[in-house]
C-alpha cells in the first residue's frame, strides 16, 4: 500500500465535499472519464489551465460555455504536451521577469483521451517528459477512439469488439502498456487511477499535485457507448476492472513501481467481460473458452509476481 502518512485523504469522508467542475456537459451518461475528472478537478482546483487534445472532452468547452472555473486551451490531437510546454515556459518567463505575481501562477494540466495518449501524441508526451516539463498529464482511457464511434486504438484490449474490429475474435492486437512506456522515461510520477476508487485516486492526485516535473496519470474510463453497457453499470464495471485485476492500480516513483491496491481474491475476468457488449461474442452464440482462458491467463501472469 502507498504511504498514507503524506496524504490528507485517509478516509472517504476526507474527500472534498465541494465540487468544482460544472454540470450539464455534453459527456455521455455514465461517462467514467468525466467521473474521474470531477474527482481530479476537486483536488487540483481552479488555479489551473487545462491543455486539451482532440477527444470526447474537447466538447466540455463549447463556446461560450465551460464547466471549468480555471483556464482552458484546446490544441490539436497530437501536441497537447507541447501546448503545456509553451504555457509553462511562458508563465516561468513572466514570473522570472516579475511581470506577474507568484499567485498568478497555475498548474498546467494536459487532458487527453487514449487516442492521443497512446498514439498520435506519444511523441510530444515523450518530448515533454524528456525535457522534465513541470506538468500534470491526465489520460482518460476508454480503450478506443470513442469520440468518433469507438474504433480500436492502441489502448483497446485484446478481443474487444470495436467499430473497426467486428469479427468473431474482436480486436486482434493487445492493449499497449502505456504505464511502462511512460515510466521508462523516469518522470517524477506515473499512476493509474479509476473513478470508482475515489480514495486511491485522491491520494494519487494529491501526491502528484505536491510534486514537480512530469506527473502522469492514466484513468481507466468505463464507457457505456463504446463498451456497450447500460450507463447505470458504470460504477460496477469500474469496480470489477479493479477486482478482476484487469486494471491494476499502481504508481511509479523514484524508479520503483508500487501497487496501491492488490485485489485479495481476484474475481474471474469473465465477470468483467460478461457485462459488456464489446465482449459478448466471447459468450454468445457459443462460449469461446479458448479466448476467455487466454484473457484470464494474461491477467494471472501479470499478477503472479506482484506482492504487497
Amino acid at each position: 500500500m502507498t504511504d498514507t502518512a503524506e496524504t490528507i485523504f485517509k478516509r472517504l469522508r476526507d474527500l472534498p465535499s465541494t465540487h468544482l467542475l460544472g454540470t450539464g456537459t455534453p459527456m455521455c451518461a455514465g461517462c467514467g472519464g468525466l467521473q474521474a475528472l470531477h474527482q481530479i478537478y476537486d483536488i487540483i482546483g481552479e488555479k489551473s489551465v487545462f491543455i486539451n487534445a482532440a477527444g470526447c472532452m474537447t466538447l466540455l468547452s463549447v463556446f461560450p460555455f465551460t464547466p471549468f472555473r480555471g483556464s482552458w486551451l484546446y490544441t490539436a490531437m497530437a501536441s497537447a504536451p507541447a501546448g503545456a510546454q509553451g504555457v509553462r515556459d511562458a508563465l516561468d518567463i513572466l514570473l522570472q521577469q516579475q511581470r506577474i505575481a507568484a499567485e498568478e501562477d497555475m498548474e498546467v494540466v494536459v487532458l487527453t483521451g487514449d487516442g492521443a495518449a497512446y498514439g498520435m501524441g506519444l511523441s510530444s508526451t515523450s518530448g515533454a517528459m524528456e525535457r522534465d516539463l513541470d506538468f500534470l498529464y491526465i489520460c482518460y482511457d476508454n480503450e478506443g477512439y470513442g469520440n468518433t464511434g469507438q474504433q480500436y486504438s492502441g489502448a483497446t484490449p485484446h478481443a474487444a469488439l470495436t467499430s473497426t474490429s467486428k469479427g468473431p475474435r474482436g480486436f486482434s492486437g493487445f492493449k499497449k502498456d502505456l504505464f511502462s512506456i511512460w515510466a521508462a522515461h523516469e518522470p517524477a510520477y506515473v499512476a493509474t487511477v479509476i473513478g470508482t476508487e475515489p480514495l486511491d485516486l485522491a491520494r494519487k492526485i494529491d501526491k502528484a499535485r505536491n510534486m514537480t516535473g512530469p506527473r502522469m496519470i492514466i484513468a481507466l474510463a468505463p464507457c457505456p457507448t463504446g463498451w456497450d453497457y447500460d450507463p447505470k453499470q458504470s460504477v460496477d464495471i469500474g469496480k470489477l476492472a479493479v477486482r478482476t485485476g484487469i486494471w491494476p492500480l499502481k504508481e511509479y516513483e523514484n524508479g520503483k513501481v508500487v501497487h496501491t491496491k492488490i485485489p485479495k481474491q481476484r474475481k474471474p475476468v469473465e465477470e468483467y467481460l460478461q457485462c459488456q457488449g464489446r465482449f459478448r461474442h466471447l459468450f454468445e452464440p457459443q462460449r469461446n473458452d479458448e479466448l476467455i482462458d487466454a484473457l484470464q491467463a494474461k491477467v494471472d501472469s501479470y499478477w503472479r509476481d506482484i506482492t504487497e
Partner: protein
Amino acid sequence: MKRMLLTGNGAAAWGARLAATDYIPAFPITPQTEIIEALANWIDNGAMNARLVTLESEHSMITAAGAAAATGVRVFSATSSQGLLYAMEMLYTVSGWRAPFVLTNVSRGLAAPITLESDHTDVMAARDSGFLQIHCATCQEVLDSTLIAYRLAEDARVRLPVIVNLDGFYLSFTREPVQLPDQQIAKEFVGRYDAENIRFRASAPVSQAVAVLGGSPYSYFRYETHLAAQNALLVYDEVAAEFNQRFGRQHNAIEEYRSDDADILFVMMGSFATKAKEAVDLLRDSGQAVGLLRPRLIRPFPTQSFQHLLGGKKGIAVIDQNLSMGMGGVLHAELSSALYGHANAPATLVSFIGGLGGRDISSEEFFEMAAVTRRAVDEGVTPAPRLLYNETELREIRKLQAVAQSEREELHNSADKPSGEQQ
C-alpha cells in the same frame, strides 16, 4: 547603428534578438539551423535574455509557440520546407487562436524528390493558414522585416502570427553588409507586447480556442480572422513608414523598380528579384521599357496597390518560384484574380515557372520572358504557362538518366535472376 556582414540566417537571428524576444521554441532543419544556433549561443553566453527550448517536432514547436504567445510572452521561431509542412495543422490552429508571434521560414523546395535548395512552394502552402507573410530579397530586409513583423503581429487591429520568408542558400547562407539598429532604438520601435485580456492568469481565467457548434459561430470567427488580416494592409503601411522614420529604410508592401514608365513588368518575389533588377537594367540599356514589381507582403495580398501599379501597363510577366500541380504559379493566379474585371487592368498576364529547387534564372531567360510577353501583347494571345528549362539542362538530365539506366542494366545482368522472374 553599426554595419556588419551577416548571412540571411544571421540577420533573422539578430531580428529576434533586437525585438527582445522572450521565448524561442526550436527544431533544426536545413537551411534554417544557423538561426537557432546563433540564438542558443547568445542565450548561453548571456548576450540575450530569452529561453530556447528544442521541441521534438515542428508540429510541437508551433504548438508551444502559439501557447506561449497566448500566455503573453513574445515568441520567435524558425523553420523551413518539410518542417513548415509538418507544422501545417498548427499554423492554421494558432492563427485561429490569434496568437501573435514571428516565424522565420527559410524557403526550400518540397519533397518529392527531396532537395535542400530553395523555392517558394513551401511557404505558398501556408498561404491560407492565417499567418501573414512578408517576403525578403536581401539580408537587410530580413532583419528589418522581423522588427516590422512584431509590430504588425501584435497590433490590436491585427493580432495574428507573421511569417518572414527568406530564400534558402541564396539568402540564408549569403553574407551581405547589414545595418544593425541600436538595441535600445529597436526595442523602442517594437515596444512591449501587451496581450491585453487574451492570456492565462490565475486571477482571470479564460478559455481559449474552444470548440464551436455549427457554421454560424464558426463563420463568425473565421471572418474575424480574415478581416484582421486585411487590417494588416493599413497597419503595415503605418509601421513601415514609422520604421523608415526611425531607421531611414523604406520597405513598401510592393517594391517598385523602374516600373513607372515601363510598359512590360516582371512580377516576382524573394531574392531572385535582384536578378530581375539586373535584367531590367540590361533591357533598359537595349531600349526596352521594362520594370519590376516585387511584392513583399503576400498575406494580406496588396490587391489595391497592384491594381494601381499595374493599371495601364501592356503586359505582365509573372515569375513564380512555386508550382501548384495542375494549375501553375500561385502568384500568377492571385494576381489574375486581383486584376480581373478591374478597369485599366493589363490584358496580358503571362505565367512563367522558374527557380524551382534553387535552379537559376539567367539574364537571357529574363530577356526571353520579356520578349514572350511583348509578343503576347502584340498578338493579343496569352500563351500557356512556361516552365523554364533549357537545352543544356535537358541534355544533362538525359545524361543522368543514361547513367541510371546503364547502372540498372549492369546490376540486372550481373545478378542471379530470381526464379520465376522472366523477361
